[in-house]
């Protein structure tokens, strides 16, 4: 068994090992680190869900849902099963709902429209054909 290499072979091996370590060190440094992207997606989802939850807990919205034969609790349960992007879109719609519950015609129309939209997203009714 020959255990001694010639000088050129050792020199080359040394260069190769050094280069390998230099290349491997930064990678090793970050191996297993959990990135911000991963965590942000979860946080954004939680915020969007909270916004939809707030919407569904509004008295006027609940009233409309019940008139359409949908239990608000069921609607919320369906909302939690939405994909990230559908939930994000739905929560954007929730932001655009007139905030005041002053019973004006515009506000009422807004609520009816939004409730239909929510139900559409939750696959209870299919009014808008906005996907699939």
């Amino acid at each position: 068994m020959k255990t001694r290499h010639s000088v050129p072979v050792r020199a080359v091996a040394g260069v190769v090992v050094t280069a390998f370590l230099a290349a491997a060190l930064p990678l090793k440094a970050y191996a297993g680190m959990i990135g911000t992207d991963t965590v942000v997606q979860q946080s954004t989802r939680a915020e969007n869900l909270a916004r939809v939850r707030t919407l569904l807990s509004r008295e006027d919205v609940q009233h409309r849902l019940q008139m359409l034969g949908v239990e608000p609790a069921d609607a919320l349960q369906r909302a939690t099963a939405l994909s990230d992007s559908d939930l994000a879109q739905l929560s954007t719609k929730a932001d655009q709902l007139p905030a005041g519950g002053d019973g004006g015609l515009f506000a009422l129309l807004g609520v009816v429209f939004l409730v239909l939209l929510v139900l559409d997203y939750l696959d209870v009714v299919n009014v808008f054909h906005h996907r699939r």
Partner: protein
Amino acid sequence: MPAACLLLVAAAGCTTTRLRDAGAAQAAVELVAVPFYAQTEHQCGPAALAASLQASGVAIEPDALVREVYLPALKGSLQVELQAAARRHGRLAYRLPPTLPALVHELDAGRPVLVLQNFGLVHAPLWHYAVVIGYDRTGDRFLLRTGTTRRQALAAARFDGTWRRAGRWGLVVLRPGEIPSGASAAEYVSAAQALAATAGPALATPAFEAAVMQWPDEGLTWFALGNARLSQDDPRGAEAAFGEALARRPGDAAARNNLALLLARRGCTVAARAQIERALADSAGTALAATVEESVAEIGAGGPAAATDCPVPPQAPPTD
């Protein structure tokens, strides 16, 4: 459909105090320093983006942006491309919440807002980009740089009609470190992360540093700062940030995983093991579990001799 249009017009007509309702703080705001570029052909996107970038201190002309954001086949620009182009020029693109108060607050803060308008109908849109540079609260009007008009005073109700039909899409172009009022921590961190991916971590790090000042109680901002410092080759700074994240969210398995790996790397094997075991328990049943298990294996494989300045792992309380 015609009935719906009439209703909307009627509803808009009876409201004349939109700016007051939206919380406009001053009688009038006009950001006169925002430059004006008259759009050529359909190129409102490059013109509006150039004005926004200039206002945030980037010297750029619309012609230079045409190649980046204009799609000849569409005769227009896509919103995502405007955001991406802002990032390429080292600016953080933040999509405002789709509300008038969010728009007004930005103008109050001295920042113009790039908006998308729809001059057509919802189902037959005519898209247009413009820059809102101020408002006149008494006249209930917004001021815009738009198309070939340097200064357009548009009734707030009319503006909001065109804006609403475009999903109230509004963008602010920020120097890294500037934070819009009413921003959400998660969305700001997400925008800063997108900037880091495009323009490099060095440019985006001030945004992460600012986020922990703005939202000091949010674990997420500290976690993001930890990763940003790490990408800047500052492992001790990262370790401190992950520690702050955990002080706010002790159940944050991602921050604990990263902290454990950093401790292991500098030879604090005992402290690292204590942290990773807790992370393993906290991540059970979540999407992070597999990654944490890999870290357990890596740390368990041993490492260099113990360093001298390691954090002391929390002791179990005495049992007697």
